[in-house]
């Protein structure tokens, strides 16, 4: 069946090789890179992958409109469908978006309470059993690790895992060695999985830089094709 195919063949299966087989409920993962490198594309991949496994996700964004985000999903899904020779891509897409809810928020002094309020509201009023959140545009620079702790409790209570996007400055990305950038260090304890995107000549390389408490960190041979926005295993 096409759906199972797509799941089995998804390069993201490689991420499952990580310590716990992915991001567990109550845990937080981050995808970091400079602006415009491909964080949204990666997060959309992760989201679609979850949906293919019949899980529901909520995509939260502080800096994009619903229409814009929906276009990301459509484009990436279209590429995936084409690659795997799927025929009724449109029909299938309509089914997929039933398992996804997009929440767009304006920046606020207390972003977590806003996220929590909206996520709770949606999950309760509509019995939408989400299992993962994707959160984009949260401003880590003004973030407080303590608030994150409270947020983790909320996630655990709701049975949710959460992926965040983190925008790095150029220097932080350039001077990257093998671990979480200095400026981000204070969040180290809160994060369970961290992936960094590094722009190479004709692709984006995905590098796992934190995997729960595992050391040394397994190498994930994943790349993001800058043209098709598809994730593939290292060629």
């Amino acid at each position, binding site marked *: 069946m096409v759906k199972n195919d797509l799941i089995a063949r998804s390069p993201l299966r490689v991420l499952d090789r990580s310590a716990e087989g992915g991001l567990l409920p109550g845990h937080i993962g981050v995808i970091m890179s400079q602006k415009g490198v491909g964080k949204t594309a990666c997060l959309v991949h992760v989201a679609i992958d979850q949906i293919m496994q019949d899980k529901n996700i909520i995509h939260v964004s502080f800096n994009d*409109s*619903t229409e814009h985000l*929906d276009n990301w999903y459509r484009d990436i899904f279209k590429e995936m469908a084409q690659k795997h020779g799927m025929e*009724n891509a*449109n*029909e299938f897409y*309509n089914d997929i*978006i*039933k398992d996804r*809810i*997009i*929440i*767009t*928020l*304006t920046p*606020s002094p207390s972003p977590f309470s*806003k996220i929590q*309020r*909206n996520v709770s*509201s*949606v999950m*309760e*009023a*509509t*019995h*939408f059993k989400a299992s993962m959140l994707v959160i984009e545009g949260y401003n880590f620079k003004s973030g407080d690790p303590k608030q994150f702790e409270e947020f983790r409790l909320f996630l655990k209570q709701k049975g949710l895992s959460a992926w965040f996007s983190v925008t790095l400055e150029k220097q932080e990305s350039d001077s990257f060695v093998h671990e979480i950038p200095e400026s981000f260090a204070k969040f180290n304890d809160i994060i369970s999985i961290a992936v960094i995107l590094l722009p190479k000549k004709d692709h984006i390389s995905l590098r796992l830089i934190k995997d729960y408490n595992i050391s040394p960190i397994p190498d994930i041979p994943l790349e993001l094709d800058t043209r098709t926005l598809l994730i593939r295993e290292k060629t």
Partner: protein
Amino acid sequence: MSKFDVSKVCNIGISAHIDSGKTTLTERILFYTGKIHAMHEVKGKDGVGAVMDFMELEKERGITITSASTCAEWKDHIINVIDTPGHVDFTVEVERSLKVLDSAILVLCAVGGVQSQSITVDRQMKRYGISRIAFINKCDRTGANPLNVVKQLREQLGLNAVLLQLPIGSEDEFNGIVDIISNKALYFDGKAGEDIRIENIPENMLEQVKEMHEKLEDALSLISDEFAEKAIEKQVTEEIIKKTIREATIKRELVPVLLGSAYKNKGIQTLLDAIIDYLPCPLDINPKALDKDKNEEEVLLKADSELPTVLNAFKLEDGKYGQLTYIRIYQGMIRKGCELTNTRTSQEIRIGRLVRMHADKMEEISEAYAGDIVALFGVDCASGDTFTSDGLNYTMSSMFVPKPVISLSVKAPDKKTSDLMSRAIGRFTKEDPTFISFVDPESNQTIIQGMGELHLDIYIERIKREYGFALETGKPQVAYRETISRPTEFNYTHKKQSGGAGQYARIAGIIEPLLDKDYEFVDEIRGGVIPREYIPSCDKGFSECMKKGTLIGFPITGVKVTINDGAYHAVDSSDMAFRVCAITAFRESYSRCSPVILEPIMSVSVEGPADFQGTMLATLNQRRGTIVSVTDNGIFIRVDAHVPLAEMFGYSTSLRSSTQGKAEFSMEFCRYERVPESIAELIKKEYSDKALRIK
């Protein structure tokens, strides 16, 4: 009036939340532009209603049902004011009027500020790339806070709103306006504020005005490098400021904000000045037409009266003078007696009487030019038709008209009113292509169809008001469709050879599901087993079956029929034989294709205060809705969901009562989707019951 100068024309719409004073504002605009000689209160205190709202219905419901176009003149400019419907049930009408406008005035209440409906309106404006000016009205009211409203425009609608004025005195002491650009205070004297007195800024406001002026220059420097340079060189003049504001407004990088009180006659003349100073003229806009000869490829038009003519009829009115057709001339010019071609019907028409319209009065003219909006008499056409000269085969809008999603049976109480009903419905269907009517051959009932419950309700109300009787209505019926879910092979022989003229035809092939299209016929006959001449009849027979399925009596969609074998008889085969064969083959195979029922799904948008988020979500969930997205700007929430139309009846009332009237919704057709099993059973049962009753 002096010779027509297209650079001095502004085609604007006025867009507003209910109760922001739109009607009063429009009337004041007409007063100051000299078209009416007295002003009347909207509520009709002195017994005469406001000129603009010539249909009582609009006043009561608070929404505008039809567009009216009014010509106003101000300082040698022509301002065509187009009234726009706000409700999304009238999508085609809204789209048509938004395409006709070049820009808009967004009216807000100084007390209420940005309301939940403003989000929908703003979305519409963005969709059509319309430049706007914001006008903060009712500055004389208790609680008026224009500065806060500007903040809301910036934060909640994400607009680069820049205040160009400041109020002198607040609430009931509001008595003048400071112009931040010229640094002068203006007072509106005279019984109707018609005399403007210019004074120096009051002492106690000097500081604030200076600050605002700097803010203005900063905002302009951010947008325009040229302005930034001038600012650094301290060479900024009033003229340069205005020029920069105009450019930025036309490019939609800026929304100038003005203020006043229409009711108290303050700030209208300054608003009119701003309209001609900052809003685009037709030359600043690049309207596109579609070339029918080149597969609807886009063509750019120019507001040049020397070029071939292209104009669009955007509104029809069947009133006391006959049929009035409102047109927007995009290119070229027209004069009495000239000939044009309707590119939809290929019919030629001759321009008869040409008039410039006020809401209820007319001015006869002999010619009109590109960029203008006028009206024609005695032209028979449909709303949306495009007329051209010199053989251009352009159309201003795609020929696509959305199919209705809901129908209702209607009956007049007696014979006399029955005639009136036909006349009324005939009138409405001509003005609005999304409102359809026909007589159901089976039940003999008159059916009306439209885009939503509200859409039909309004016409039923209008018949009551304008014709004086109430229609009896049946239960609203959702426009279901049938489709098949499994491919099936068929092989059918139609034979009638018992005495007299016989019939013989055999067709074999496959019926299979088809995505994204209603119907497709594929001919794979080889070796002439079915003669070429009979193939079209096969096609005809199959497509006839598509009109009404045998599952629940609704149109079938998504079917591909391939014929690959068959047989004929030299004498007894005929077109009819093959047609009948096709019909019977299809009907017989239909159930083997596992037919299913499809229902229209609507894209529903609900907006309201954040406190009601849970309620709004719940009301949608209860109606088999799937939530698509939630937008939270801190004060208002917008929930977008896909909900079956069948579940939307009575939603308006239900939403209003569960949110204290504070939430609103709009909806438009999204797509067709399979109906859940349990509901399919109910529908099938209803159909078989109905069939029994008719028998």
